[in-house]
């Protein structure tokens, strides 16, 4: 009897597998695996994107990438974005979440308000901020002038272009992380907090020893999103600075676009893509292995 039942169960799982796996596998292969393999293949060619690649140059494209000053800057900029995401954005999101998870008048409205930037399309955000930052007509310029100071052209200087982008990044994404934290806080078992309060723990102690530890899974998830999102940052950069001036605000993806796509150097662009892919995969697997084992 038991044997029969088990076989039935296996049969059921097998048919489900046969039914549901192939379409998913097919889509995954066509849209994820093949492009990656293709990019790796193209990266060995000197190719302008027309016809089929014929000029094999081995690993030269990779040397060109590592040799260029722009890629180093782009890589450092990505690290900077990650650092700012972790050090400024996440703590900001967490503290706002701790306040707004409580129910009080206007808390829902405030949540919506902070979440709004995340809903806005990246390109639109970039354009809006390029108007705000405009040194002649922008909002920022009028504020500076109101105080009698000369307006800075944030996007036009190699010193400040990255700062301008970082501000937009934090502004745009903190609401998303805040929402993640609020969801986690609301799903939290209130009894634990209450018990601690009865035991005489102060608000700070409750926060440090109960709430934040209970939030760890969400924090880990949030960090994961922040890092991967930072590595992929592109569509905010393009309308703001297009990676300029002098490559000062490129991310790895905008560097890929400016040097691979715009210059019609598909092989070179593919090489950057492969490098980016390796970085992302390494990070994703390492992080999952070390920090997200339990989930």
């Amino acid at each position, binding site marked *: 009897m038991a044997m029969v039942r088990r076989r039935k169960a296996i049969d059921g799982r097998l048919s489900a597998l046969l039914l549901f796996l192939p379409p998913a596998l097919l889509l995954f292969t066509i849209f994820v695996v093949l492009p990656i393999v293709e990019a790796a293949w193209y990266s060995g060619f*000197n*190719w*302008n*994107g*027309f*016809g089929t690649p014929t*000029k094999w140059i081995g690993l030269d494209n990779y040397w*060109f990438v590592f040799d260029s000053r722009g890629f180093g800057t782009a890589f450092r900029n990505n690290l900077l974005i990650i650092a700012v995401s972790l050090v400024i954005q996440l703590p900001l999101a967490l503290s706002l979440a701790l306040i707004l998870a409580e129910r009080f008048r206007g808390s829902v409205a405030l949540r919506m308000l902070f979440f709004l930037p995340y809903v806005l399309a990246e390109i639109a955000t970039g354009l809006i901020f390029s108007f705000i930052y405009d*040194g*002649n007509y922008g909002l920022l310029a009028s504020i500076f002038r109101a105080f009698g100071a000369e307006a800075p*052209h944030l*996007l*036009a*200087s*190699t010193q400040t272009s990255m700062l301008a982008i970082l501000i937009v990044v934090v502004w745009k994404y903190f609401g998303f992380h805040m929402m993640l934290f609020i969801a986690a806080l609301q799903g939290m078992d209130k009894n634990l907090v209450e018990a601690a309060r009865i035991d005489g723990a102060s608000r700070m102690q409750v926060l440090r020893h109960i709430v934040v530890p209970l939030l760890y899974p969400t924090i880990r998830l949030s960090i994961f999103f922040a890092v991967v999102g930072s590595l992929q940052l592109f569509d905010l950069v393009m309308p703001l*600075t*297009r990676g*300029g*001036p*002098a*490559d000062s605000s490129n991310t790895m993806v905008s560097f890929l*676009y*400016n040097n691979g*796509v*715009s*210059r*019609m*150097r598909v*092989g*070179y662009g593919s090489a950057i893509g492969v490098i980016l892919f390796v970085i992302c995969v390494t990070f994703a697997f390492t992080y999952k292995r070390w920090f997200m084992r339990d989930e």
Partner: protein
Amino acid sequence: MGLLRKLALAAAGLMLSAGAVAAQTTVKWLHIEQNPAQVKIWEEAARRYEAKNPGVKVEMQFLENEAYKAKLPTILQSKDRPHILYSWAGGVLKTQVEAGVLEDITAGVGSLKDNISAAALEAFTVDGKIYGLPFNVSQVGFMYNKDLFAKAGVEGDKIKTWDQFLDAVKKLKAAGVTPIVVGGGDKWPLHFYWTHLAVRLGGKPAFEAALKGQNGGFEGETFIKSGELMKQLVDLEPFQTGFLGFKNQQALGFFGDGKAAMNLAISHHSATQRALAADKKGIPEDKLGWIDFPMPAGAKGQPTDTLGGVNGWLITKGAPKEALDFVKYFVSDEVQRELAKQNFLIPTYKGAEAALSAAFMQNVARNIAASKYHQNFYDQDLGPSVGRVVNDATAEIAGGSMTPKQAAKAIQDAFKQGN
């Protein structure tokens, strides 16, 4: 009653289907023109063509300049590609011809060939075959605001040499006028300085030698000197504050608003600055001056040499024959005159330049006619892989992050990498 209604419906249905049968061919036309006043004339030309050729529909599609350049390879290789494409000729055109995505229209152009400016048509001829029809030629030079020049006591007509030009910049600055506005964020407006200096310093021989890798290629004396002279100008801080963040459109608007004295422009920008000015009027014809790019000391090029573009329409592989037919109409005397009359372009149809009504554009037309060496924009002529590096490197000279030597080396390296 019921029967009548049914009959009426059937008749209407018949008419509709008859209409559908008649409109068999759609010609898809992709352009990058931003000036609505000019696009309007184009549209009217398309509608007139449709009226004369029942059964043909001309569909206009628009892409912004930079977006168009980036998408072009993909567009060209898709099955759904437009039939008529905008082109700057040069190295990009050669690549497209090699890839076999364009139609050889030599036979189709026929006798129209003799009516088109030979130099302009030459730009669209690769290995003796014609791949496109030019409709506009342009010259790069300084357009200036006569009022602001007068305010600083500078006489625009007297500027012939590089040193006189630098003096004018100093005077304008001293008078509290922003000497030059430039769309440095787009980079190519900055590459005009370096390129035109090279055209002046070395003339045609220097460019041709560089292409062959002689005299140090683009790292040779002419090109390093171009960078150094450009640096002389940059060191005077002649540009508007924040110029590295300006797009060319913004720069033209800024000029049209009378906020800067000069702009190193493509000749037809004289019309664009009007469209982009805040008041939509810009600098009027009688206040707008033109300075041919000044001659540096020891220049080996001729003062008549010009830097500029040739713009035309390409016919893509497999396009219906109506596509070429429409383009032929577009570059015909009728349409060319109409565009010239409003000073939107320097026409390529011989004789149509007589319709130019502005002294400004008439002057440019004369310059181009007198030019024996008309250098196409480097960023088009050298193809995107090298051309973009020219743009990047020259923008870095302007931003002070590269020395003239480093810039020349970067360009030569890109040229040697050959992709």
